[in-house]
């Protein structure tokens, strides 16, 4: 509006509304100073302020609401698991990728906008938001082919030193972009031979998952260009027992969980990926009946070495069904240490889990009916139910 020069309408004429306001402001301020009436003395005039985010708490959670029925209007709610209040909001556009910088100071949003709301020229961007002010601080325009898919941590991601940002592309040709968040520019686009998504490791390695059951790993040079690529041995069979693409981050790599509950832990810390011996979430008798499912299908507490998985009774094709229970596993012994049933009639089944990384951890669980549950991650005790936190919350991130 500031840049538009209205044809022949001087802006100085006729503001009945604002004129009254002006009088009000003038007159009221004098009254506020005037002697008080009968006791108790009148309430003082209040001052409008802008709230600040305040000191970060490990019990905060970023809740990504994909708003399926209004998909151009997805957003992130920053929610406090102790006070059960919203701290603020970050707008995230259309089928976004959302991730935090390694230092937690920035939220990166890879998303799509249209020139006319839901139609018109498509512009894809990675937007950067300051987590201390929840204000947008900048953006990088990327090729208009951001991979628009299921909520997960791998549709935008940072390198471990925060110097690169990776964004998967799909046209349907698969590739990914390497961005420089400091200089706000696109450094390169790297073809992934049909492998997809970005699983980052270290300062300069990006893996993508392939239909062959392998991981393709690209190593970047200092300019963000491809230096080399290697392909792992196959570690799963997409026909017999596919793994969820939404891997679970481990202290030293990622765990790829299969539809039937096999856990494929992969050590990313070595020059070549090291596939550990797979282990199972389910017993021989449970196998095929009890299954992991949902969207964000696992979360790990790193120092406690615990894995949390929403589980349900299902069959072929039930891999997106939410959990009727949350199962807890010890990552060393691979033993199940607890199973916590959820009142799914009342709350809905659990489609996403996240756990805070502190010593008194909270388990956050989003349900298919848009409730966000807050549980004690050590006892499973339900602390709070935040009803209807948005429309379709499906991804939970730690601060």
């Amino acid at each position, binding site marked *: *509006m*500031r840049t538009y020069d209205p044809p022949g309408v001087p*802006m*100085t*004429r*006729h*503001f*009945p*509304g*604002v*004129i*009254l*306001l*002006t*009088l*009000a*402001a*003038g*007159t*009221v*301020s004098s*009254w*506020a100073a005037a002697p008080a*009436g009968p006791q*108790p003395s*009148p*309430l*003082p*005039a*209040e*001052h*409008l*302020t*802008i*709230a*600040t*985010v*305040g000191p970060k708490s490990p019990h905060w959670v970023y809740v990504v609401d994909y708003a399926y029925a209004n998909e151009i*209007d997805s*957003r992130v709610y*920053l929610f406090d698991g102790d006070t059960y*209040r*919203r*701290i*603020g*909001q*970050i*707008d995230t556009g259309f089928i976004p990728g959302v991730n935090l910088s390694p230092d937690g100071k920035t939220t990166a949003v890879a998303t799509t906008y249209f020139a006319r709301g839901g139609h018109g020229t498509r512009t894809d961007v990675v937007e950067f*938001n300051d987590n201390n*002010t*929840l*204000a*947008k601080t900048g953006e990088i325009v990327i090729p208009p082919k951001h991979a628009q898919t299921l909520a997960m941590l791998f549709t935008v991601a940072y390198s471990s030193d925060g110097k690169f940002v990776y964004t998967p592309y799909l046209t349907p040709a698969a590739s990914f972009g390497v961005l420089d968040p400091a200089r706000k520019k696109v450094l390169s686009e790297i073809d992934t031979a049909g492998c997809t998504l970005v699983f980052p490791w270290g300062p300069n390695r990006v893996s993508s998952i392939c239909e062959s059951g392998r991981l393709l790993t690209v190593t970047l040079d200092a300019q963000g260009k491809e230096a080399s690529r290697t392909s792992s041995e196959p570690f799963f069979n997409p026909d017999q027992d596919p793994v969820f693409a939404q891997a679970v981050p481990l202290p030293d790599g990622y765990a790829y969980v299969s539809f039937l509950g096999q856990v494929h832990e992969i050590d990313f810390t070595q020059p070549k990926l090291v596939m550990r011996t797979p282990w199972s979430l389910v017993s021989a008798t449970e196998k095929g009946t009890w299954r992991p499912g949902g969207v964000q299908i696992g979360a790990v507490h790193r120092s406690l070495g615990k894995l949390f998985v929403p589980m349900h009774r299902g069959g072929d094709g039930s891999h997106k069904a939410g959990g009727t229970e949350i199962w807890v596993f010890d990552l060393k012994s691979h033993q199940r240490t607890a199973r916590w049933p959820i009142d799914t009639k009342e709350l809905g089944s659990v489609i996403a889990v996240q756990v805070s990384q502190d010593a008194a951890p909270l388990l956050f669980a989003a349900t298919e009916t848009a409730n966000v549950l807050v549980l004690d991650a050590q006892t499973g005790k339900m602390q709070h139910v935040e009803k209807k936190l*948005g*429309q379709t919350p499906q991804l939970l991130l730690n601060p």
Partner: protein
Amino acid sequence: MKPDRIFEKAARSLAKRTSRRSLLASLGQLLTGAALLPLLPIDRTARAQSPSSPVAKPTADEQNCEYWKYCAIDGFLCACCGGTSTSCPPGTQSSPITWIGTCHNPGDGRDYIVSYNDCCGKVSCGDCFCDRNEGEKPMYRLSRNNDVNWCMANTESNYHCSVSVILGVAQK
């Protein structure tokens, strides 16, 4: 509808020394550009945006549509969106223009003039929708209307939520 003596009084005093048209014109001049802001209740936001701004700790009252200060609000209560009844959520901007209401405080039996401001620059908060209309007037009386998007004049003019700020006591 509660009496707006504040406006009657102001109008009377002004009527003595000026015609409506010249009044409009002269005020119009003041209402443009930076000169506008100091005249509006909302010049306080300038201070507000300083580092001394508070972390929001909304009370249960402030998250309740029945709260007396909300007697003419229409929108999402900022107290449910990361703010309070008097603070916009982080990362939003307050509207420099606003509508007002006259609300009765059962706590002290007084009527207060309340300024409602929209908080702007993010998409709809979507929580704690509250639509109350005591003394609210249609769009032709803009200063009392809660239907228009009061973020209209902001650089970022999207509507996020609404606050309610006490300006002072309405004269009995």
